[in-house]
């Protein structure tokens, strides 16, 4: 999966204007924009864009943007 494209989708879902502040190393829970609604937005985005329904238990194990990308890659193989 294309990294920049995913970061754009991620930023859009969290209403982050400047996507350039996000990199693969970003621990997304530490972003200012991250809150309970942000979480719902990411879950909904993963479902709509990638057809992935992720359980909370699994999601909790994902820390960085790279973890998210790897998860999507594995799930859509």
């Amino acid at each position: 999966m294309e990294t920049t494209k995913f970061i754009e989708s991620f930023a859009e879902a969290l209403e982050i204007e400047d996507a350039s502040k996000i990199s693969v190393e970003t621990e997304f829970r530490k972003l200012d924009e991250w809150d309970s609604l942000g979480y719902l937005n990411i879950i909904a985005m993963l479902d709509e864009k990638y057809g992935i329904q992720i359980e909370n238990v699994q999601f909790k194990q994902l820390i960085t943007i790279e973890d998210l990308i790897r998860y999507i890659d594995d799930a859509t193989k």
Partner: protein
Amino acid sequence: MTESSNPFSLQGKHILITGASSGIGRQCAVSCDRMGARLLLVGRNQSRLVETLRMLSGSDHDYKTTDLDKIPSTYIEDLATLHGAFDGFVHSAGIEKTLPVKFLKKTDYEEVFNTNAFSAFEIIRQLCSRRTFKDGGSIVLISSITSLIARGGVCAYAASKGAINSAVRVMALELSKRRIRVNSVSPGTILTPMMKDYLASLTDDERKKRVDGFPLGIGTSEDVANGVIYLLSDASRWVTGSNLIIDGGYTAR
């Protein structure tokens, strides 16, 4: 206290309960049974309905497996012919779709409204006949405090419950000629299986924040069922078109 002197008794009342296969609906069945009512339980899942039935001590109850999205136009009439006219109706069937507004499509709203509101409205239409519903009967629709206060991610659910609150007032007015009362109950967070799933989706911090909002803590389905009993019983004979908030003080803040 003898049954006749207890204003909260449901002795001799025939009550229809939707969503009786789980959560608040199931607890309403258990509580109404204890108060002496005869029940007709409605739900999607037969084995879980039978499970509810087994929790009841009365032997004259029955159940009907039903997909509420597809109620035939003679649904209630057929039930009343078979089991007798009703004195009470509790609509507890409900679904929730946690999605932020920008992801909620019309079909999502339709799905939630169909189960939470439209199915109840259709059943009430079919109850507007003396053959199916007795004069002086009571209708209770389970709403939610999200019909009154905002919470992120529950727009479709909240809107469908708001529809209930508004409809209840008009229905109460129109059906008052037959002394039929129509009310809603708005529970706060109750530990139903549906709510347990939701709470599990939150982080520890969010869960704590969520629970902290309730001065009396999180409620049980029994707390809600007791309010429903009151509204079904003759104790509330002068109460109609109202929304009974049962939320441990959440909305008082």
